[in-house]
Each structure stands twice: as C-alpha cells, then as structure tokens.
C-alpha cells in the first residue's frame, strides 16, 4: 500500500514518477547494485537470479567480459583478466608490493598504474568503469530507463586519491554519482533504519581488500560518525594469500607460472570459505605440468596462519575508539560487514574485543549496497518525508608541507564534512615571487611518511620582505570527502586554486579522451549523450526552481521574480530544441538569476532552525 506525502498545491507527483536511484557497492571481490522499491531496499539480480557481480574484468579476444564470465577465465587467462582492481585505485606502481607485481604486466611509468592487456594499457580506473557499466546496465534494465542518481560507496579509510579515482571511474561508466558514501556508514543506514536503533554502534567492515572500523552515534534520525579508522590494504584477499604461502612452504613448491599461481589462489579461497562451516578443508590443485598438490588445512592451522592479520584489525579499532573518546563498553552493538567477517576467527576476535556477540542479522555482502540505495533514494528526492540525516567524517588528516620536510595539519582526521579550514603562511625570502604548495594526507609528521596528493604553485606574489606576505591556504572538503585547495595572498589578492587532482589519478583531459574512445567503439553517439545529459541537468534545474518558487516566492522582489521567470522560460524554450550549447547557456543564466533567491532561502532555513530555540537555550543552563 502506497504512502503519500503532502505536496504543494497542484504539485502532486504522478504515480510512479519516481526518480531512478541506485546504490552501488563497488567491492574488491564482488560488486552489487541496489534500489529502493516500494519503500524497501532490494539488491538487483541478474537474469540467473545472482545478486553479486564478481569484480573481475577480462579483456578477451573478441569482447570485454565482466563478472562470472570473466572470473571463469581468471586462471587460464591471468594477464588479461584483472581482479581486485580496487586495491590499485589511486596508487602508483611504487605502492604495489613486489610479491604482487607478478600478477599482471604492469607498465613502467610515473603516475597512475597501467596494466598491459590485449586491449592496450588499462588503468584500475578503467577496469572499475567496466564493472560499473555492467551494474549500470543491470539497473537500467531493471528500473526501465536512464538513472537519475547513484550513490557509490568507498571504504571509509580511502584517501583523497582513491576517492577521486572511484568518482572518475563512475564518470567513465556514465554513472551519475550524486554522492560518494563511506561503506561502514552505508551499512549503518541499512542497519539502523531497519532496526530503529539508538545509541553508539561500531561497524566492523572487512572486505576483500580493505578494512574499516567506524564508530557512529544514532540519535533521533541523525547518523553521526564519531570516528573512523582502518587499513586500505588489508582484507580477505590477504587471508587467501596466507593460505597460498603456507601451501608453498608445506610442499616446497617451485616458482609458479601465472596460470598455476591463479589456480592455487582460487583453491585457497575455496578452502577459506569451507572453513567457515567445517573444521578442515582440502586444498587440491592440479598444475599445468600435471603435478598435483594435495593438502588438508585445519581451522586451527588457518587460525594460526592468520593470527597476525586478525590482530592487525584490532589496532585501528582501538584508535577509532580513542578518537571517539569512548571505550569498548560504550558500544551498544557491533555490526559486521563484508564477506570476510564470516571467518570464525574474526567473529571471535570482535566478540572478545567488544565483550559482546556481533550483530549479523543483515547479509554482510549486501548491507552496504542496501544502505547506499536508501541514501540515493533520499538524495534524488524520492522521499520528501524522510528526515534522517547523515554526518560523516574524513578519515585522514589533510595538510601542507612546511620547512624541513614536515607536514602542517590543516584539517584533522575525523573532522565532520563538509569542512572548510584555512591557515596563513608566509614567505621566507625577501622578494619571493612564488610559493610552492605540496598537499599531503596522513597522520605522520614527516612528508615522506604521508601520501602526496598534489603540488601547485602560487605565483605573482609582489616583492615584499621575508615574512610580510600573508598567504592564506584554504582546504575545502565537500560532502563526498573530496578536497579542493586554494591559496591567496591576502594583501594583494593574488590567487591560485586547484581541485586536487591526485598524482596517481587521471587528468580531466585523459578522462575526456577515454570517454571519446569508448564512444568510438560503442554504438552510443557522444553528441547525443552530452545533449541528453545537458537536458537532464536542465530539467533538474527547472524542477528545482519551480519548487523553490512554489514554496518561497514571497521572499522575492518583483524584479528578481521577473528575472528568474525570464531565465526559466528561456531554459524551457531551449529544452524543446536540440542546441546543447544554447541550452547549457540558458541553464547557466538561470543559475545566475536565482543565486540571490537561493541565498535568501538558505538564510531563512537557518533562521527557522533557530526559531523558538533561543528561549529554551537561554533558560536551560
């Protein structure tokens, strides 16, 4: 039975005029897409009824395969079948452990990682985009048309470079991202809204390649992340590798070919999964040269092999608790997320650490996608009645290099986003005309121990004595957790700014070229798609303006109203034509015309939040 919200006069929505919104969990091992249907979040399955898409892409002889089809070739076509690309997102070749270098044919070079395949050199961003395309197609088929908005999840502990890489992958795949959402937070939404929970919860999220711990407080519909910590290079994959290393030692295996190594790894993973239910699992591998490996792995041995890995998850847990100024006993419940939390040794460790059995009533594989779908549904505006709110944080401190190779922190970790922070710096030489800025992320004091995000320069500082210039560096982190940095000399107003495009990411030009290339290969026509995208954007703007006018026209003076009406009419007229540039210009004009109106509405919102509060605030102390 449908539930209705009260609309403004003559604005009742048409039935089924819901916007198509999805949540996407782009995982290391598996990916999923979910949507909210009749008020309930559901995972969208393929024709065979399978909810997961293995995060594997095969650049085959004739076509690019994604998911189970690609996974089937992981062992026999190892160099052209890319798995766990998420672990390489936002990384350079120097970040890849030497042991993993043999997995693919990495292309030497600076900047973003590239792997040689049949279809040319591929970045992890392009590989991820293939997975996202598959999910997008599944969603469009299921929802009956182009998506209006998608929330894509990222590990909470992803740094800026990794987040930007994820967003770029979505752009390449034509997925309209309305928000990047932290995975544990997504899980908390799915869990919390379902259970009407109140209190402080921990979300322990061990995925295929990443580990996150988030501490959240749920109070009357507000999900407030108090602290998050983790390890973006620790996951279920590492447990597989522990089994592989053990098998190599046990049977004194010689160096394996890529094909044999993949076979062994696949069997190791199966053994790991068997051990969640059984006390022992066989590990039997037939190698290409006919040799055979036959071992039995007991749960006890597996526990011993992975003891250090399990212990590694508990360090971030205690750090997160400390940052939240809490102890384990303050935690009302622990939610387990990620397939790797099915391992008994993980469940035992979590139970021992928090003194309580973890909550597992939602499928740990699906809960992130479900939470993302709920958030997407809200963000695209399907649910006016929803009044819950999410307040998330950045996981790692952001700072700038100062003298002596040290990092000056500007935004501390666990700051609630969005956040804007500024700090003043000065010149150290007489007549210094330029200042180089090096943006870093991490908790350590030395530049060499932090992740370099970007470098840029403020030029044209007028001649002044050393120490006289006042250069204000401003860090803006948006609600996606993405950073932009600007610098401005205060006395003269000379300015430089960048959206941080990380050293290990793609440039805008590269993304544009990749998009062009993908159109060249597809039946899709680039011009048609950009026109369609501009139309969607224009339509969004028209709807936004109309509903703002319906609600608050009283705030406008007649001339202001006139200007907005004019600009609005122009957009509507251009929407009927095919001239993308004219439409785009009309949208910009409408944006400009409604700027003052937007400001008045925001002001009034703030005033309303305060209305009636002042009095009790005064009395209640």
């Amino acid at each position, binding site marked *: 039975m449908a*539930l209705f919200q*009260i609309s403004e006069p003559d*604005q*009742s929505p048409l039935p089924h005029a819901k916007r198509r919104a999805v949540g996407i969990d782009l995982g290391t091992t598996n990916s999923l897409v979910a949507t909210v249907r009749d008020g*309930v979040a559901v995972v969208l399955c393929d024709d065979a009824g399978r909810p997961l898409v293995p995060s594997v892409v095969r650049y085959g002889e004739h076509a690019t395969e994604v998911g189970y089809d690609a996974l089937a070739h992981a062992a026999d076509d190892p160099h052209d079948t890319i798995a766990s690309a998420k672990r390489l997102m936002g990384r350079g070749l120097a970040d890849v452990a030497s042991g993993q270098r043999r997995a693919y044919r990495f292309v030497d070079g600076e900047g973003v990682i590239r792997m040689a395949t049949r279809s040319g050199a591929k970045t992890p961003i392009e590989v991820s985009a293939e997975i996202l395309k598959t999910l997008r197609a599944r969603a469009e088929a299921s929802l009956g048309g182009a998506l209006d908005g998608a929330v894509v999840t990222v590990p909470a502990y992803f740094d800026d470079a990794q987040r930007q890489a994820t967003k770029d992958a979505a752009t390449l795949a034509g997925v309209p991202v309305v928000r990047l959402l932290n995975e544990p937070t997504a899980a908390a939404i799915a869990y919390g809204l379902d259970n009407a929970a109140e209190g402080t919860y921990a979300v322990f999220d061990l995925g295929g390649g990443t580990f996150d711990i988030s501490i959240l407080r749920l109070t009357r519909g507000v999900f407030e992340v108090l602290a998050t910590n983790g390890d973006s290079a620790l996951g279920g994959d590492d447990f597989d590798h522990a089994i592989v290393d053990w098998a190599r030692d046990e049977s004194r295996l010689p160096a394996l070919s890529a094909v044999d190594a993949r076979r062994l790894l696949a069997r190791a993973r199966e053994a790991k999964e068997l051990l969640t239910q059984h006390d022992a699992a066989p590990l039997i591998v037939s190698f290409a040269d006919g040799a055979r490996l036959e071992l039995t792995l007991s749960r006890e041995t597996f526990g011993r092999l992975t003891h250090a890995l399990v212990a590694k998850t508990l360090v971030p847990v205690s750090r997160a608790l400390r940052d939240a100024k809490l102890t384990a006993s303050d935690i009302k419940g622990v939610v387990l997320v990620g397939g790797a939390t099915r391992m008994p040794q993980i469940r035992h460790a979590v139970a021992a650490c928090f003194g309580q059995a973890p909550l597992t009533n939602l499928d740990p594989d699906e809960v992130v996608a479900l939470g993302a779908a*709920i958030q997407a549904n809200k963000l695209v505006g399907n649910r006016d009645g929803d009044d819950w709110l999410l307040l998330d944080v950045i996981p790692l401190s952001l700072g700038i290099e100062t003298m002596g190779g040290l990092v000056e922190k500007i935004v501390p970790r666990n700051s609630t986003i969005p956040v804007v922070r500024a700090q003043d710096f000065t010149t150290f030489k007489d007549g210094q005309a330029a200042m180089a800025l090096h943006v870093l992320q991490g908790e350590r004091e030395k530049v060499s121990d932090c992740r370099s995000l970007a470098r840029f320069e403020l030029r044209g500082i007028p001649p002044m004595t050393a120490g006289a210039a006042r250069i204000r560096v401003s860090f803006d982190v948006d609600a996606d957790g993405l950073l932009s940095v600007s610098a401005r000399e205060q006395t003269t107003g000379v300015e430089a700014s960048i959206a941080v495009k990380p050293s290990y990411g793609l440039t805008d030009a590269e993304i544009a070229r990749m998009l062009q290339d993908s159109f060249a290969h597809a039946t899709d026509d680039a011009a048609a798609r950009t026109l369609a995208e501009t139309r969607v954007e224009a339509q969004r703007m028209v709807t936004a303006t109309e509903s703002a006018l319906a609600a608050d026209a009283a705030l406008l003076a007649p001339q202001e109203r006139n200007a907005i009406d004019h600009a609005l009419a122009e957009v509507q007229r251009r929407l009927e034509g095919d001239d993308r540039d004219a439409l785009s210009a009309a949208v910009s004009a409408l944006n400009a015309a409604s700027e003052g109106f937007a400001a008045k509405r925001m002001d009034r919102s703030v005033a309303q939040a305060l209305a009636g509060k002042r009095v009790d605030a005064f009395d209640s102390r």
Partner: protein
Amino acid sequence: MAITMTESAARHVAANLRKRGKGIGLRLGVRTSGCSGLAYKLEYADEVRPEDAQFESHGVRIVVDPKSLPYLEGTQLDFSREGLNEGFKFNNPNVRDSCGCGESFNV
C-alpha cells in the same frame, strides 16, 4: 458520506501546516493517470474554491473538488509507518482494485 482522517493523520497534517507557515488545510482529490486509471492528490490548501466540498476532522479542514468527491466518499486518511517509510494512507471504500503499489486505482 464524509471524508475523515484518523487522529494521528490530523496531528501530522497540523504539524506540517505549522512547519510550512501557511495554508488553511488539506486538499484531497483524484485525477486520471497511472497504470490503473486514477491517482490521488494530496496537497496543502491555500484557499477554498466556491465549488469545493468541505469537511473537518480532528480540527483539520479538508477540501475536495466536486469532480473528485464521488471517488473519495467515505475515505479515511491515515498516517502510518512501514519499515523505513512513513506517510499518509488512503483507506478508500470505493476502490475495486489498485496497482501493485497502490499509487493508482480503479473504482
């Protein structure tokens, strides 16, 4: 027959009206559309039109245009919470069948 609402629905309507800062009550109506023929309208009312039928329930004014009235006679508006969702529900005795989600219906 009157059009009514439950006490909980009335409370929510009144609270919404207060939050909105204007409006004299609630306008209910139907229009043709959707997969099963008719669809509900649930809107704030800023004015009463001369032809409107008026009802009052738990202190909240309900206005209905004459064309919609026959499809809504005896309807009781309720407010309910279902899982993640909360909102208003039409308990309409005239409905013969509705589409799967209940957003549109037939009489």
